[in-house]
């Protein structure tokens, strides 16, 4: 998030898109709902499904899946035409505005309606609501990013925010809601193929020299590695022979799961380190038992860049060990001693080599509870919102981007669109939430969400088992005839190994972010 969670309550207009906030980030949704209900703020929801947040919305734009760029370009076109854009901000703080103006000009309300199904009048109202708000905040999640146009979707949202001068101000910004407890931290720490911690590129000789000195090694690899979604197809090609997987369950979470299983089975050696014998761990040659969050100390970084302490609550169960101990032991056996007294000693090293974390110490976290990066010095209070006064790169760049169709569109054989996501009571591949009796009791099985109209068309009654097929795989689960559903589209959560929806999803990737298009693929449905 460019801004902080608490700022949402003071935002004059909140635009939520591609986020089923009340189910996936329930606590953040309370700030949004309070803003609307008690502070009279506007809420625009741009979302195909009738999610719970819609009932709180000032305006709901129900676009067809995969048409986000058209809708946002349409908003920008109207804002520019009605002279509601922030011309001083654009002149002072941004570049490439003319290219944006030219590109969005063709996205007339009528053209947008033709692509997205959003009525022209609603688009106009939304444009005014967003543009006329003093501080407007954009909130998004995987509904925006899990597309072959995911990177462009995000850039388009950033365009809109900059157009109205909403980046670098309190209660504004472009705010991705990150889905997992430490996904922000895993990125910050260099758990990516192209960067060390603090996003220092591995291709930068100076960054490598710095890390080589810090780590006492002669030469670090200077090439950009593969992403997860790149490593899996590289296995059958013989380019990857061994994988060491920590706390991941790609057999359930990756797109086109059958391919993932086939690939992992082709490895010469697979190590999985996890807290349960997950579907992925079952394929491993060696499984290392890790401790849970409650059995170790350290830090997590949340979606608003806040580094917060994780404190040990109980002793590790059985012979399980904290991941850091396992990794350090393995390093020693590979001839590289890692002698850390504990997580704090590791964090001290992180601070030395990671400028954005340099000012954060365990002592400060103990005293202050949490600190938001960038926090370059121990005197720095942390950064509540980014890009104040100036963008990190200098001028904020507009990107002129056109709508394009998703990779796999419905056709005669596969006439429905399928999207995937989470439900309130489950989490990711279910290895944690499905073992909590309260949560499992509320959502014990996979349900295929479908409209009453589509259900009638295919002769399906609520609760009846259905078979859903894509070009890659199929599953059987019971239908859930729901007012949330979108005509022509079914929604299936990805938590359930009994009905693994990622057997059906398509491994078509965004060219930059390499994220799979989980939110659109073509399927058919029949009574099972």
């Amino acid at each position, binding site marked *: 998030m460019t801004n902080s969670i608490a700022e949402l309550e003071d935002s004059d207009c909140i635009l939520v898109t591609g986020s089923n906030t009340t189910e996936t980030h329930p606590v953040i949704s309370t700030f949004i709902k309070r803003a609307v209900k008690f502070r009279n703020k506007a809420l625009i929801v741009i979302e195909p499904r009738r999610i719970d947040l819609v009932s709180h919305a000032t305006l709901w734009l129900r676009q067809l899946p995969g048409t986000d760029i058209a809708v946002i370009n349409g908003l920008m076109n109207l804002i520019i035409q009605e002279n509601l854009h922030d011309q001083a901000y654009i002149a002072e703080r941004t570049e490439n505005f003319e290219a944006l103006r030219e590109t969005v000009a063709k996205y007339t309300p009528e053209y947008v309606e033709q692509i997205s199904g959003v009525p022209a009048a609603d688009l106009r109202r939304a444009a005014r609501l967003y543009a006329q708000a003093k501080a407007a905040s954009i909130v998004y999640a995987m509904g925006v990013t899990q597309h072959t146009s995911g990177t462009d979707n995000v850039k388009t949202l950033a365009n809109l925010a900059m157009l109205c001068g909403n980046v670098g101000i309190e209660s504004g910004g472009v705010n991705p809601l990150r889905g997992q407890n430490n996904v922000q931290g*895993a990125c910050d720490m260099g758990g990516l193929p192209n960067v060390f911690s603090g996003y220092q590129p591995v291709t930068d000789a100076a960054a490598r020299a710095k890390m080589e000195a810090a780590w006492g090694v002669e030469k670090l690899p200077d090439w950009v590695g593969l992403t997860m979604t790149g490593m899996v197809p590289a296995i059958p090609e013989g380019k990857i022979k061994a994988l060491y997987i920590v706390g991941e369950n790609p057999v359930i979470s990756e797109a086109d799961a059958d391919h993932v299983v086939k690939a992992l089975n082709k490895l010469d050696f697979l190590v999985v380190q996890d807290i349960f014998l997950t579907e992925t761990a079952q394929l491993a040659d060696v499984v290392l038992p890790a401790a849970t969050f409650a059995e170790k100390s350290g830090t997590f970084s949340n979606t608003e860049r806040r580094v917060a302490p994780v404190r040990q609550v109980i002793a590790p169960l059985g012979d399980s060990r904290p991941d850091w101990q396992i990794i350090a032991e393995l390093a020693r056996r590979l001839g590289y001693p890692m002698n850390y007294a504990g997580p704090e000693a590791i964090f001290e090293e992180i601070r030395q080599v990671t400028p954005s974390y340099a000012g954060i110490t365990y002592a400060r976290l103990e005293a202050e509870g949490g600190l938001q990066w960038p926090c370059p010095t121990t005197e720095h209070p942390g950064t509540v919102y980014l890009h104040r006064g100036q963008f990190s790169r200098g001028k904020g760049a507009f990107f002129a981007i056109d709508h394009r169709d998703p990779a796999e569109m419905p056709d005669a054989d596969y006439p429905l669109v399928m999207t995937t996501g989470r439900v309130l009571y489950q989490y990711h591949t279910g290895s944690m939430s499905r073992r909590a009796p309260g949560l499992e009791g509320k959502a014990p099985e996979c349900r295929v969400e479908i409209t009453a109209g589509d259900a009638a068309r295919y002769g399906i009654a609520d609760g009846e088992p259905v078979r859903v097929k894509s070009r890659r795989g199929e599953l059987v689960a019971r239908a859930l005839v729901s007012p949330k559903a979108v005509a022509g589209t079914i929604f299936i959560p990805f938590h359930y190994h009994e009905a693994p929806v990622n057997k059906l999803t398509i491994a078509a990737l965004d060219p930059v972010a390499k994220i799979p298009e989980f939110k659109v693929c073509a399927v058919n449905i029949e009574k099972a």
Partner: protein
Amino acid sequence: MPPSILTINGATHSFEAGQTILDVALGSGITVPTLCNYKDTTPTGACRVCVVEVEGARTLLPACATQAAPGMVVQTESPRVVEARKMVIELLLASGNHNCLVCEANGECELQSLAYRYQVTTPDFANPPDTPYYYEDDNHMLVRDFSKCVMCGRCVRACNEWQVNQAIAIGYRGAHNKIVARGDFPYVNSDCVFCGECLQACPVGAILDKHAIGQGRPWERRLVRTTCPYCGVGCQVDVHVKDGRMVKVTGADAIPNLGKLCAKGRFGWHFVDHPDRLKTPLIKENGAFREAGWDEALDLVASRLKDIRDKEGPEKIGGWCSARVTNEENYLMQKLMRAVIGTNHVDHCARL
């Protein structure tokens, strides 16, 4: 006297427009007891425990629902206030089965501590023990025991105003008043999303964390503040521990969640001590796993990785970090892969 000054218990205090007597008192370190006041929600004056004496007012006034006014002269513990407060506490005690012996809330019950502070015992005119009350115990998360409910309405405002889940309300009238979910169905069949804010808000033992029942008194439990392991919000949680075992989780009144949690954060921690947990390393032999010691497992991993690195090259090895483990662990993992193995094939599940 200049405007925006009032007197409480003989001392003057300044205040801002819109503040209640309770706001001013609490802000000045003066304790005024209340059962129904809850965070930043609408004051209702429902419990009457916070009544204070205001000079010139005909009756005692609820501090939570009375705006501070310039020149007001307030007494928070005058004989008249104490007498009234004792009567209110006595009536609340009479309204249900307030038997502390087996009550889960014993030790953290706000009615109990008021009874203690004002030395009020359970009155003779209390409802007889065989009075029928609704008891809801049909899910794995929350138990509702209406024999303890004092109708303060905190849960209703916590639900509607703090979490804005709009699942419960005060239903029926007069003596039949009751907290109801839509249609007066049990929570599990209603709009309730099991955030558990009602549980956290309840001043007595009317809403219980099912798993924690009988698992230890508050004074036997240790509290550890940590960060929730589910989504990316990073809610701060207090884990209640007794004898090395987790008993329950409550929302910590800290940034970013300000005490709020969702069903996963509050009721989703049972995976920690689930019998399925891996407790020892496993090595696959002839297609089946066998248990192994750490030395054997780690030696095997090290030798195989070394072998593949030396024969095939480090670029044939990939390592996946995790969005679930700590910063320190992710940092070490990428360091291991880059500095020790020599590969940049490092990634995690950020995209999934």
